């Protein structure tokens, strides 16, 4: 019994060690954002900010007039991509899991191949496409472009959740004379709730993190999201790393929020989706 506890303790110690190292960069963003200029210039970097200085947040985030519209644009892209992907993707995932549809295997293969497209391959034609529609500098163009990437992903991750539900659900609803859509919305959807939350959270983060389509489809600075704002600051602020890190913290906040509230769903959901493909 003694050897058992020693190995367990060793595993915990090793686990803590690895986790600390791998998460250190995330901590380092935050630590750097709180350091003053003098402290940053020290030859020996301090592990903890010696005099935590929130001034960087005031200067580079709160008093920075650009941050508000960057955030607002990011939020619109994130929510827009999430809503559009779910409206189209949830019924598709359900249909491919539980409805008598011909060529299912072919459609699934098609979705898998869709995921392989390099985004840059779509960037050029979509730029021309949206130029012709006079939709350059329109956030809707970015939302539509990003959904081409998130929709196949969402369907593939979500389908196993529907497959896992018992077969008798639709039969019971059909006996009651319900239309398949009504059965889907009233019976199936509530049961697949955890899957839908997982996918919704992940797609929101993908939209929030989007970079390439915003770079190519939005040239007006006031229309651009925070990801591009952060990139611009790298070039503009040069070596003001504390200010840059304060903005990076703001860009990372949704990830941490989603993570805190949906972690349970995300880790199990991802593994679930991946294994069942």
């Amino acid at each position, binding site marked *: 019994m003694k050897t058992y506890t020693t190995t367990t303790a060793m595993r915990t110690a090793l686990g803590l060690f690895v986790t600390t190292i791998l998460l250190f960069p995330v901590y380092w963003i935050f630590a750097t954002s709180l350091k003053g200029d003098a402290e940053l210039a020290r030859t020996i970097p301090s592990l903890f900010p010696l005099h935590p200085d929130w001034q960087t947040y005031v200067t580079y985030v709160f008093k920075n007039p650009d941050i508000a519209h960057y955030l607002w644009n990011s939020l619109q892209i994130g929510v827009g991509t999430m809503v559009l992907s779910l409206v189209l993707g949830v019924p598709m995932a359900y249909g491919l899991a539980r409805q008598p549809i011909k060529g299912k295997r072919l459609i699934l293969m098609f979705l898998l191949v869709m995921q392989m497209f*390099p*985004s840059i391959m779509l960037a050029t034609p979509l730029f021309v496409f949206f130029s012709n529609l006079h939709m350059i500098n329109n956030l809707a163009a970015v939302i539509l472009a990003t959904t081409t990437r998130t929709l196949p992903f969402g369907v593939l991750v979500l389908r196993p959740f529907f497959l896992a539900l018992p077969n008798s659900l639709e039969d019971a609803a059909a006996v009651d004379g319900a239309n398949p859509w009504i059965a889907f919305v009233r019976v199936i959807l509530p049961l697949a709730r955890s899957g839908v939350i997982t996918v919704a959270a992940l797609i929101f983060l993908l939209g929030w993190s989007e970079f390439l389509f915003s770079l190519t489809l939005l040239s007006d600075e006031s229309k651009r999201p925070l990801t591009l704002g952060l990139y611009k600051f790298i070039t503009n602020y040069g070596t003001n790393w504390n200010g840059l890190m304060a903005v990076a913290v703001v860009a990372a906040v949704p990830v941490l929020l989603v993570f805190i509230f949906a972690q349970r769903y995300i880790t199990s959901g991802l593994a679930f989706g991946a294994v069942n493909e």
Partner: protein
Amino acid sequence: MRALTPYSFIIPALLFLGIFLIYPMFTNLLYSVERVDVGGLLTGVTPFVGLQNYQHVLGDPQFRSSVIILLIFTATCVTFQFIIGFLLALLFKDRFPLSGPMRGVLMVPWLLPMVVSGTIFKWMLQLQNGLFNYVLLSAHLIHQPIAWLDDPHIALAGPIIANIWIGIPFNMALLLAGLQSISPSLYEAASVDGANLWHQFWRITVPMMRSQILAVLVLGIILTSNVFDLIYIMTGGGPVNATTTVPIYAYQSSFVFYDLGSGAAATVLLFIVLVIIASIYIALLNREEVRS
């Protein structure tokens, strides 16, 4: 009418993908055999030039070097992500105190926006005051600070390190799910027969996980080959194109030099290679299915 209802679940999504994905893909293919520049875009006149764009791209030393850089980038990233991810999956396979929360927070690097990850690594890899140089100098592993992102001979290492960091959680999560699907009775039987852990790993774990390992590697190759944001943010493809991979090359062709035809040709070439890799994967998977 009733027979059509099942299709109503998938038709809206298929229509969307047809308009915003398939149609642009098709026009991209078309651009790759046309001369598409700023004037052409304004007037709508894009003459057919046959395979000229492909000849131009394949003959461009810049493109050839971007292929080699992409191969180095992808091979190094996938190898390290896979090995480290596998080791972590083995560590976290059995529950131990705090294993759940640790597995959870280890996903954070994968979920962070690439711009954020790129910025933090750019800062840690700075010549002056960068954490990497500080740690390596303190450990006496190097004697001079390294200009990680500014020295063309070593610049690719920066995006590689950052991308390995981003990819580890993904590899770990998928491999962990595979490990946990192996029945513990197999290991019990093996240890009764006197097989040690090393033998158990090669005789049970690896063969049982063959399809997951294959999936993780193929997905890793595809995702890594497509990386754009991270490199664009950390180095922009420089210094002197030392980190210009095929996606960066295609971006520059289309959006910096406005030679959209060549940009399109470069992405089509990349896509063909990825399709070949994926086809090999699917063929192997089918063979596995037949075998089992």
